[in-house]
Every structure is written in C-alpha cells, then in structure tokens.
C-alpha cells in the first residue's frame, strides 16, 4: 500500500546547535550522572551497613583519617566551581578565547583533584584497604569517586587540547557546557562523601 505524503512541518529553520536540556548530549550526561551518582549512594550505603558491625568507628586499633589533604581537596573543589561556570557561560556566547583559558584552568584544577586524591588514599586515610572492613569501605568510596576524577581529567584535558589545536566547531561549545554540568555533579557530589569518610569517624 502506498500512501501519499502530506507535508505538515518544515524542519529547515530549526537550529542545529543548542545548549543544556535541548541538546541530547546533555541528556546523555544526565544519564551517566544518574548511574554514577547512584553508584556513589550505594557505596555510602555499604559504608553505613558495615559500620553497624563495629562498636567503634573506626574499629579498635585503627587510626583516624587525617583531615589536611581532604579538607584542602574540598576547598579546591569549591574554588573550581566559579571558574567552570565562567567557562560555561563563555561557551554559550561562543567566546573562543575565554573558553580556551577556562579549559586550561579547569584542567589544572582537575590535576589537583587527582593529585590530592592520591594523597588522601595513600596518606590521609592512614589505613590500607586490606586492614579491615572499615578500611575497605573507605577505599571503596574514595576509589569509586577517584575514577570519576580520572575520567573527567581525560575529558577536560582532551577538550582543552581540542580547543587549542583542533578545528573547533560550534557544537563543541555545547559540549563544554555539558562538561561543566558533570563537573558540578562531581565536585558538589563529593561534599557529603567527604563528611562521611573524614568527619563521621570522628563523631561516631
């Protein structure tokens, strides 16, 4: 059966570069934010569940985590947020010069996150993962979040490279704003986990 076609809409005038929820890349980012965010929630649930098996937390003969590097990490994360928002706004205006600078600064911030995370794991926690279930749970949360930091470093670093040396197209500016969205999730999402991993053991 062949049908005649009746044209009711012309799509020619629609824009082909859009930002935020109008863009499907934003939705994809949202999807992975949901998945990774829920994974972190589950990590935290594991931590709380295992804590019920101990009368003290951290368990006896287990040192408390140090607060220096972890607190510095949180401050650096908070400091990075205005930079990333500034970059995102520049991207919405297709301001190539500012986006280039913003991406370089963001990459440096992200390197600092990864470096500080290494210090947090190897020094601040004061425990190795195989010491007891407490130590395993600490490494689980910090490690899971560390993969986010590492992947984002690859992404933002790659994006900076693209903006400095590759042929940049308009759609890449939309990608910058999605990167900023993910950045907010990654940094603000860390705050409750910081409280759980580093402050809670001192209170309980």
């Amino acid at each position, binding site marked *: 059966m062949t049908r005649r076609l009746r044209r009711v809409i012309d799509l020619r005038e629609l824009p082909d570069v859009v930002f935020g929820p109008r863009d499907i890349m934003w939705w994809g980012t949202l999807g992975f934010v949901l998945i990774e965010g829920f994974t972190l929630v589950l990590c935290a649930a594991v931590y709380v569940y295992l804590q019920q098996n101990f009368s003290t937390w951290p368990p006896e003969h287990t040192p408390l985590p140090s607060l220096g590097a972890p607190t510095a990490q949180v401050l650096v994360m908070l400091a990075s947020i205005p930079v990333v928002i500034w970059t995102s706004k520049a991207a919405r205006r297709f301001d190539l010069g500012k986006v280039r600078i913003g991406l370089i600064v963001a990459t440096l911030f992200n390197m600092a996150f990864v470096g500080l995370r290494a210090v947090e794991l190897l020094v601040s926690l004061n425990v190795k993962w195989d010491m007891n279930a407490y130590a395993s749970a600490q490494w689980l949360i910090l490690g899971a979040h560390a993969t986010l930091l590492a992947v984002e470093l690859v992404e933002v670093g790659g994006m900076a490279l693209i903006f400095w040396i*590759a042929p940049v197209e308009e759609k890449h500016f939309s990608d910058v704003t999605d990167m900023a969205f993910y950045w907010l999730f990654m940094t603000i999402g860390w705050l409750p986990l910081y409280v759980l991993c580093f402050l809670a053991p001192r209170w309980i």
Partner: protein
Amino acid sequence: MSETIAPTAAAVPLGPDDADIAELTRTYRSDANGLWAWVTSVDHKSIGKRYVATCFAWFLLAGINAVIMRMQLARPENHIVGPDRYNQLFTVHGTAMMFLFAVPVMTAMALYLVPLMVGTRDVAYPRLNAFGYWVFLIGGLFLFTGLYTNTGPDTGWFAYTPLSGPEYAPGKRVDVWAQVVTFTEIAGLVAAVEMIVTIFKMRAPGMSLNRIPLYVWSILVVSFMIVFAMPSVAMASTMMLAMDRLVATHFFNRAEGGDPLLWQHLFWFFGHPEVYIMFIPGLGFVSAIVETFTGRRIFAYPVMVLSLFITGFVAFGLWVHHMFTTPVPQLGRTLFTAASVLIAIPTGTQIFCWIATIWAGRPRYTTAMLFALGFIVVFTIGGLTGVMIASVPFDLQVHDTYFVVAHFHYVILGGVLFPLFGACYLYFPKITGRLMSETLGKWHFWLVFIGVNVTFFPMHQLGLDGMPRRVYTYLPEMGWGKLNLIATVGAVIIVSGVAVFLWNVLASARAGAIAGANPWGAPGLEWATSSPPPPWNFHPVPVVEGRAPLWEAGEELPVATGLATDKREIVITTALDAIPDSRHEHPGPSHWPLVMAIAIGVTFIGAVWTPWAYVIGFAMSGVAFAGWGWPRGTHPEDQVTDGILPRAEAR
C-alpha cells in the same frame, strides 16, 4: 494538540524524491567494504541484528548446558557429569540466561525497534551503541571460554559469599563470573541511556507522551530500572567481590568486620528488579502483538502505562523476599511480603486488559498471536506461584527447591521467551523483508508450549517432595526419579521446538514470502517504512497525529520535511509534547567503539590476574577516547576561529 504540529506549509502531496534518496544513499554509505564496513557500522539496525543473533547464540549454548543437566538428573545416581562439572554447568546456565540472554536480548530488540517505532533515524548515540555491543560480545566470549577451559564459574548465578570468596573458591572461576557481570552491566547501562534519550528526545513530531506505543513505554520503564538496579551488582561484583579476591579487601569477610549478607542485599537489590527488567519488555511485545492481530487498539491505554510504572517502581521493594531464610527483622518481612503479593495487581490488570481487547477485536491466530496467548497461559502460572512464595511460612518450605525452579522458569519462559518468539514472528518481515513460515511457526509454538509445561510443571511437585535445587544427583530412595525423567523428556521437546524455530529463521530468511512494508496491517510507525528499512529509516520524517498512526492516517501520511540529506541529520523534539526543537547531526562509521571495547576488555579480563590491568586499561581507554572524540574537521563551514562565528548572522 493541533498547535503542537501546526502546519508550516500547505498540505501538498509529495512524491518520492529520487534525488534525495540518491544523496541519502551516498551519505549513509560506508567508505569501507565487507567485514570492515560491518565492524565500523554504527547503524542501530545492523547492531541490533548482530546483538539479537549473539544473544540467541548464548541462549543455545546455555540451553545445551540445561540439556546436559537434565540428562544427568534423568535418573538417580547418574554419572554423566560429576559435581565439579555440574556446578559449572548450572552456574553458567543461569549466568548466561540472565546476563547474556533474557535481559540483553530484550534490549537488543529495543535497539533495533525503538528508533523505528518513534520515527527517527537511529538511537541517540550510535557509536556508544556499537561500543555497548562489543563489550557485551567480549563478556559472553569470556564466560564460555571459561566454561570450555574448565574455568567456568561454579558458585551459582548469585555467587553467594563466602562460597565465592577467596577462601572457598580458589582459582579464577569466580573472577570470570565477576568480570562477565561487569561487561554485561556496562553494556546494559549503555543501552539504557540510549533508550531513555532516544525515547525522550527523538520521537517523531507530534508523538506526545500519550501517543507513545506501549512497547516503547515498557522499554522506557525498563531503562530507568536498569539505571537504578545494575549499578548495585556492578559495584558488588567489580569493586567488592573481585577486590576481596584480588587484593584482599574485607567486604564480605566476617573475621575482619565484613558481612556475607551484605552481598545478598546488594545482589538482590539488583536481582529482583532484574526479573521485571526481563519481562516488562515482554509485556510490551504482547501489547504490540495483541494490538496488531486483533486489529484494535489496546483497551485502557492509560491503565496499561500506569501498570508498567507501578510494576517498575514496586519491583525495587521486593528484594528481601529472596532472603527470608536469613536473619531479617519481622517488620521487614511483613513489608516485603506485602509488596511481593501486591505487585501481582498491576500485571493482573494488564492481563485483563488484553483479554478485553481480544474480546472486542477480531483476533487472527497467527504464530505471533499464539505466542501471546501462550504467554498468558504460562506466565499466569508463574505469577500465581510467585504470590504463593511471597508468603514467609510457605517460602521457608520451598525456598531453594525445585518448586522455585519451576516458578521462575514459568515466569521467565512465559514472560520473556514466549513474547520474544512472538515478536520474532511479528518483526521478522520488517527486519528481513520476508515472512516466516506459519506452518513451521505452529510446530514451533506447540512444541515449545508442550515442552515447557512437561519440563517445568512436574518440578513443582519435586520441590514439594523435598528436592533442593543445585544438586548434581539424588539418592534412588528419594523417589524423585520418575518426575525428573518426565522433566528431561520435556526438555527434549523444547529443544526440538527451538530447532524448528532456527530452521524457520534460516529457511525464511532465504526464501520466505516477500513481506512488503506492512504485511500485518499494523498501526505503528515502524511499518510506515520499507522492509527492511533503509539505513536512514525514514525520509521524510513521519509526523504523528494519534496513538495508532497508520490506522488513523488514511490515504495521506503526514510528514515533516527539511532534514538535510547530505549529512546524517535527525530531528530533536521536546520531551513531553514532541514539538520539533532542533536538528542534530549523527556521526558516521567508526572503528573507535571497537577499540574502546577492547581497552575495556583488556582492563577487566586482565584484572582477573593483576590489579595493574586497571592502570594499563585506563591508559588504553584514554587513547581510544581521544580517537573517538577528536574533531575530524569535516564541516569547515562550522569552524570557529578566533572570535569569528561562521554563521552568527543566521542566529
């Protein structure tokens, strides 16, 4: 609704535009030839087909396991396989059927069908889609390579700790299991994100929420369930069980404050929703089949959609009913029992709606329709026994017995396999352009229907007679021999049915009757395009003015024109009302998804032996990531150079 698709041009008839088609053909052609073109393809139809075929391959291999197990159990104290082999057989059977067949085959069908059903040209992220398939393929190959080299996992498909822990499962068998789970969960999550975005943002203009086909609704619900269920098992297997085994963390080690029950919670928080993730797409298929072959819209559409959502939501409140034999507080048991009983309501309502639809329609008893009816007959038994075992006192008796084996096979074969077979008959002509043989189809249906009942119905009695599951043999004095022999005979009947199906597929693909665009007179957009569809699916893009577009369209099909033909362009619409909002360009063929999948494969397969695999794999993934994302400069007209926007004036 009319303002949502306000005509911008006069309703003039459009002929097929040969110049457009010629240009689209050039745009969608791959530069490569033969195998390399296939490897680099990002077309959702090509990937969907290989995905479904791969799932069926795992289904056959896992089915062979089942046949060997049935042979072993056909009589007491049989010696076809010993316990070591038997434990690998049943673990791989369960793992493959769950992680490599029942869930992914439904996803794979959706990856093929959903873009066609919502009237778009591909899924949201075609390269990511290809990546998901390759990861899935690596996972399946890894599992069966393990089995055939005597390194098959042997601690059951839910791998309870401490039996699966470093102390009681030395060797690499359980590590294989843990990483196979990782691979399949990555693939599943990727597909779920694909589906969510495709359904939310890429529906044809005018396909507002209340016009989405029921099958597409079912996929949307399931995709959200995957997003919240799969991280649990992925985390528990990759980051906890594998780490306990590889680097001596203590998540499940009681001696160091870990907890074996934590594994059960994390596993079943995934594992119970998983059951619904499997059969909710089946419910969608049944709706599509019943609608098509009664020639009538499914009765009570809003109720059907609501039922899917309630089922998907409550499914997350049932997991503890797998753990009634462990120390769970009384209140918890009561709540989980109540939820487990009440989840039967929405599914029951859907069955009543289908029956009402059949009553009001003009049913045609094709093979697909028989499978839909067979679904109701078989699945209802599984549902009723499911309500029974929600009861704690009764569950404590039949938990981990053949009664439960019978129950979940009725649910899974009824809820997944029957609708899937039905869908194969329904969509085979769309996918291949040829109809499947109805004669062979009837043989296929009756053999499978009889075989399933002969195999699994006696197992209820075996469970009540005290036969536990996962036993490699039993004593002659137990009196279980006769029923087990009957079950084995049933398994042979199922095998013959599946053989008829395979023969039907192969023979019909070569020489079936030519189908045409819409052989069944079905209402959905997927039937508006040719069979098989061209690589771009639709040109011009269809516009939807009702819930059953092809039944309502009459002589003229409303369309939207204006998408570019010189690039792979799709239209993005608003999430609720599907108003056209922007155009988006899709990428062309790429080998980077495969490279990325290999990097992931090296990471997790290597991690069976050394934690350094994560470092190496991460570096490899970084390279793949760069190759994937690096701009090719294919659109010089779009390039932004210092402060100059090429098309600023147009904005």
